[in-house]
């Protein structure tokens, strides 16, 4: 690949970084054909599902679980769009038999920096947990799986979030 990769602030000339580019090319994680085929199959499988116009699947952060068996809960999530780094509040609906949680995001949304710890424009789960309800779990917003006294790790949190996938209603 050859790219006009250089910006020279003095001359505004564009010189190809052939050596650095070559270094990247030599160390790139190139997908083999099998991986590309899998990505295509995944894409075809994804688009085969009914398009949810105006809706989307995204993570559900469940913070500080509170007992409410049988009760539906409303979550308000903050998630950035790709066009901006501003957080947009989205209302989600949780399955009635899921754990009900109470999340107050108005304060969080007022200050995005609390939930974008590495300033990449994305909302960070850990920072979200810490910002929303640091007292609900351990110190510094650690997450404990429901009914478990041991500190959960990211895998457990991700698995639990995946198990309670929520559908964005509006946004």
């Amino acid at each position: 690949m050859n790219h006009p990769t250089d910006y020279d602030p003095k001359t505004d000339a564009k010189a190809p970084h052939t050596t650095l580019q070559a270094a990247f090319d030599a160390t790139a994680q190139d997908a083999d054909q099998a991986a590309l085929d899998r990505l295509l199959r995944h894409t075809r499988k994804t688009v085969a599902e009914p398009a949810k116009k105006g809706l989307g699947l995204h993570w559900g952060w469940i913070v500080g679980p509170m007992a409410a068996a049988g009760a539906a809960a409303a979550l308000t999530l903050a998630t950035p769009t790709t066009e901006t780094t501003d957080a947009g509040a989205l209302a989600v609906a949780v399955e009635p038999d899921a754990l009900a949680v109470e999340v107050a995001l108005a304060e969080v949304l007022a200050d995005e920096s609390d939930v974008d710890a590495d300033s990449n424009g994305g909302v960070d789960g850990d920072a979200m947990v810490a910002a929303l309800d640091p007292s609900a779990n351990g110190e510094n917003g650690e997450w404990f799986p429901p009914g478990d006294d041991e500190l959960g790790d990211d895998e457990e949190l991700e698995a639990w979030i995946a198990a309670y996938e929520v559908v964005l209603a509006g946004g």
Partner: protein
Amino acid sequence: MTHPGDSPAHDAHLIARAKAGDGEAFTALVRPLLPALYRVAGRLAGRAAAEDAAQEALTLAWQRIHKLRPETPFAAFLFGFAIKRAATLARGERRRKGHEDRSANQADPNRPDRPDEVMQARRLQAAIAEGLAKLPTKRRDAVVMRLDGGLGDRDIAAALGSTEGSVRVLVHHGLATLEEHLKSLGFELATRGGTP
């Protein structure tokens, strides 16, 4: 084969169809971008998570295609998801493995099979990973989208939510810092703007 970005009118037509729920149109939009998407995901998330990051980016792009603004290039839209998902997966990977070097044991069957060349390639891969990790996030993402993704200033700006002018500066400084880092580790690089 038409490449997204090569023909804005063609892209606009496919995007309109995709927004209407046409999966084939969406597939046509993403297919030419898959190799670059995988490269960017791999660089930022590591080999083990590259496919996951790419798949998640594709899923999110389809599910949020209705949010794609007319002025946003499709490649920027897709890569915007990829860099965020890759960053999230990379963070999870680091926590699980305690900052283990992601480039370790990532031998590529397409790479030279001479031991010394393999070692050199691994050293270079590790050095690049180390150098990228030291860059501020936006600078790192801009460099990777440029060198691995082949994206131009406009697409990178849209993906980062930045301006083209800012992207030029991000890339300029990112490349300079990366070059210095590689040189400090003994890798020889051509002088920027000069003859190799």
